[in-house]
């Protein structure tokens, strides 16, 4: 990441500066309302050093004079704190809405898998505990997790997005779930002939898919019967 000294740009709001920084494209803006509610910050003061100062910095009310190393430490804390609040915020209704807008704009990139046909992806964390793994991308079409294409996202903690966010988003907006009824798949071939073990695996996976479809039909049948009984 590049220049982190927000001191030079006092006219700008801290959050605006943070969102504009390179590598922070995945973040959305957190409402002041959410930030002002102390209930939303429960437990974060033990996680972040200089919690109060960092909070002040995010809210642009930090006016204390301090030496450069401390200042830098507070800056780092503020970035960390913003990320952790962000993970909580995007699970709220307004946060989901904001992330949905970004998703629709394609801010998070597209799935690298060829047969997903450039399906937009969502950021996901592999753990809710900070400093365990960088952010990954989740594709709803193939339901798999990918490494972000650019190295600049490697320094972003996955905990800033959380493990639950993509699934909550699709639970809240089920009409966005891509159609998966006729999935394509790739089977390698040599001179047009499919390779035996690949084709065999594909057949096995196809049988798994049909099993799943059968189960899903069964669930629907159960549901219908239950409704009739009521």
């Amino acid at each position, binding site marked *: 990441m590049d220049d982190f000294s927000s001191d030079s740009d006092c006219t700008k709001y801290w959050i605006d500066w943070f969102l504009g920084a390179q590598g922070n494209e995945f973040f959305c803006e957190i409402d002041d309302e959410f930030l002002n509610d102390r209930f939303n910050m429960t437990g974060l003061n033990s996680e972040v050093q200089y919690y109060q100062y960092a909070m002040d910095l995010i809210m642009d009310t930090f006016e204390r004079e301090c030496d450069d190393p401390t200042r830098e430490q507070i800056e780092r804390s503020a970035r960390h704190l913003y990320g952790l609040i962000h993970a909580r915020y995007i699970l709220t209704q307004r946060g989901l809405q904001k992330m949905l807008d970004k998703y629709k704009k394609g801010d998070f990139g597209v799935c690298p*898998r060829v047969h997903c046909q450039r399906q937009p992806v969502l950021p996901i964390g592999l753990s809710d505990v900070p400093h365990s793994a960088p952010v990954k991308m989740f594709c709803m*079409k193939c339901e798999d997790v990918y*490494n972000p294409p650019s190295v600049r996202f490697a320094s972003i903690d996955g905990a800033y997005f959380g493990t639950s966010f993509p699934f909550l988003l699709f639970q809240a907006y089920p009409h966005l779930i891509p159609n998966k009824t006729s999935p394509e798949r790739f089977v390698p071939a040599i001179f047009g002939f499919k390779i035996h073990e690949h084709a065999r695996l594909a057949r096995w996976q196809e049988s798994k898919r049909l099993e799943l479809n059968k*189960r899903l039909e069964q669930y629907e049948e159960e549901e219908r019967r239950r409704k009739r009984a009521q």
Partner: protein
Amino acid sequence: MKGHEYFAEVTEDFIEDDFNLTGLSSLVPYYKEALDMILDFETDPDDAAHLPNIPIIENSADQLYGLIHARFLLTRQGLAVMAEKYDLAHFGSCPRYLCHSTPLLPIGTSDLPSRDTVKLYCPNCTDIYSPAGKEESEVDGAYFGTSFAGLFLKTYTDIPGPLGGLRIPASTAVSHPTPKQKQSQSQQSSHPQSGNGTDPTSTATSTSTATTTSSQQQPTSTSPTASASSTTSSASTTDRTTATPSSSEDAAVSTLLHDSDSKWEVFQMHLFGFKVSERARSGPRMRWLRERPRVLSDINPF
């Protein structure tokens, strides 16, 4: 040239042999001029007068070279060059997180030019991905062809295939080692080597010999070719005993070691720590795509 990192250098002998170029003249405009350009021949000044400008021929030369390249890759020499590039991970690594940076292979979705761009095939998850770089994603897929990746994996069977992680009964396992391995193998192997073409091929006839060969850095125990002939359930007990290959400097072997040790993983959706149910509309529907049978006998042989 930027974006052309995937290409191997085609040997001049290969290009000069007319037989190798059969049929290409109908696919490429200004075929003769393009070929001259590739081989750095001076064009006849008399001809040059009625020829179109250089960029058009350059374009044809690009295309011709790409198509020759696709044919060259299928030769033994081409495969060897690509094996070297593969070991150096010139083609990048799999973007899928649970593939843990498996090296990729370039592949085309069509053998005809200007149909589709080059894709990358992951031998671990057997799926194809778009290259991350912009320049790479503009290279024509026909310059690599649809068959290369498959043939590569059939030639160098020490790279685990889709069923590579499974223990496969090694009754008639045949392995073609990578070039680096070939040297170490020819020094160590006590088996009679039948000259199959130019590749040293060693055939393990029983499970006990397979155990000894695998200790000699031979990936027989997880060789995907063995799966073709042997799917008997009786062998599932004996194949557990076959040892994994011992350590080697070869990059391709280390991926095998890694794969045979680790369990196959599939990403599981979790919402606040709870698995998302299949019954939910947003529930998992695509797990089958990444699933692998736990034992080989689970798979229907036909």
